[in-house]
């Protein structure tokens, strides 16, 4: 299979309620490449990402993974893809480690405790390991969600505003992580409203909707 | 012919309340349904027309 178009989108259209958000959207993302989805509030970024994950049905058009429509190869696709939305998917009653354990289990994978702990500490959660996530701060909960993302080491990351609530250090960290991920042949589709420093990365920008976005570093 | 007189008919051998009660409510229900249906159909058309003009402008 052509390594340079693992994920491809053909004539995609998306409607929410009455409103047609976008149509005739075409793009393809290859290994080691990042797609940065940009657009103003309410232009349809989240909706697009949910289409890509297969959670929502497109109004028209098709999404292909390794050449096959994702509806056909659902299991394969979901095994290689991981999604982080506006909601963290973090259980308030569990502590970070337990959260990661079950996240892994639900992906049908075994759980490597040491690796998980390293990841959490790497994300600066060392002192929160045994606190229920309920008491964690907004940004700390976001960090837990990110570590679940890293633990999964999937090929394709789909990130909806991964930086919300993260402080500057965490943002820098995150940029580094994305770079490594791409360098190791991974792919990422992400939206963000914040400046993101991604030099040395093959970035493809996609503007959703009609609100122009001033070029960001 | 079953009935000696109209009053006899309405009386239904003492069961008038029950029989006519049933028929009356049934008639009412059907009437209401039809009326509501006509109204909603009419309103839908009108609303769509308005939206269309609004979209065109």
């Amino acid at each position, binding site marked *: 299979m052509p390594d340079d178009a693992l994920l491809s989108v053909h004539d995609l259209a998306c409607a929410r309620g009455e409103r047609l958000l976008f149509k005739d959207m075409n793009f393809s993302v290859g290994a080691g490449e990042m797609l940065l989805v940009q657009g103003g509030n309410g232009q349809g970024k989240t909706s697009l990402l949910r289409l890509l*994950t*297969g*959670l*929502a*049905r497109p109004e028209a058009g098709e999404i292909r993974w390794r050449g096959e429509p994702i509806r056909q190869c*659902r*299991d*394969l696709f*979901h*095994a290689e*893809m*991981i*999604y982080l*939305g*506006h*909601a*963290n*998917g*973090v*259980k*308030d*009653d*569990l502590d970070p480690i*337990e959260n990661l354990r*079950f*996240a*892994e*289990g*639900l*992906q*049908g994978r*075994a759980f490597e405790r040491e690796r998980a702990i390293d990841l959490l500490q790497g994300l600066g959660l060392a002192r929160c390991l045994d606190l*229920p996530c309920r008491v964690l701060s907004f940004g700390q909960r976001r960090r837990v969600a990110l570590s679940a993302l890293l633990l999964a080491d999937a090929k394709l990351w789909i990130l909806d505003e991964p930086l919300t609530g993260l402080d500057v250090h965490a943002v820098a960290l995150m940029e580094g992580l994305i770079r490594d991920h791409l360098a190791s042949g991974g792919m990422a589709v992400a939206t963000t409203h914040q400046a993101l420093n991604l030099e040395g990365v093959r970035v493809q920008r996609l503007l959703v909707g009609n609100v122009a976005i001033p070029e960001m570093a | 012919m079953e009935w000696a007189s109209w009053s006899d008919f309405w009386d239904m051998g003492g069961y008038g309340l029950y029989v006519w009660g049933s028929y009356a409510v049934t008639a009412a229900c059907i009437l209401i349904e039809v009326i509501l249906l006509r109204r909603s159909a009419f309103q839908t058309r009108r609303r769509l027309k308005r939206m269309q003009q609004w979209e065109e402008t």
Partner: protein
Amino acid sequence: MGRFLLAVLRRDLTLAARRRGDWLIAQFFFVMVASLFPLGVGPEPNMLARIGPGVLWVAATLASLLSLSRLFADDHHDGSLEHMVLSPEPTVLLVLGKSLAHWLIYGIPLLLIAPVLGIQFNLSWEAILILEFSLLLGTPILSLLGGVGAALTLGLRGGGVLLTLLILPLYVPALIFGAGAVDGVLAGTGAEAHLSLLGAFLILTLLIAPWIAAAALRVSLE
């Protein structure tokens, strides 16, 4: 696959253990409803014995219905449900696992409490035995059907009560067979027939409900 089912189970059990509160309240609700009745109806022993099985069955039904509304709601809310549905494993397994967990968490305790309440309504021992048995067969049905309801009403406000409205009529056969079994004992006509019908209904539900629930879940997440 096995691991996935196990993970779902362990996860829900852990969460339930964390919120021992919610768990307690369901049990308490069962006791309360069952005990409210003598208060509302009056204390004559034989009358209570007559209505006992029915009351206990209805109480058990309502008790586990209460918790059903939250079967998927919490996970949906904090986004983890999406992650589960996005896992490579089939969604049916997910639904099955969650229904099963619900039964273990909320169904089993009812079985343990029921005899005590049975004594309150001075039921005979074999009546209580049959009651236990009928509940053992009946409660999983509710958990399974409830899965469908919970998936359908996912993210709707007042989902809890809507769920009751959707599920209870479907659940009536179980109620009838179950309570009927105990009445059968009391009336001396035996309970086998009812119990076997109840079992058949359970198997049928087990075969059908998870698939519909899975489909409903995907629909609700769109």
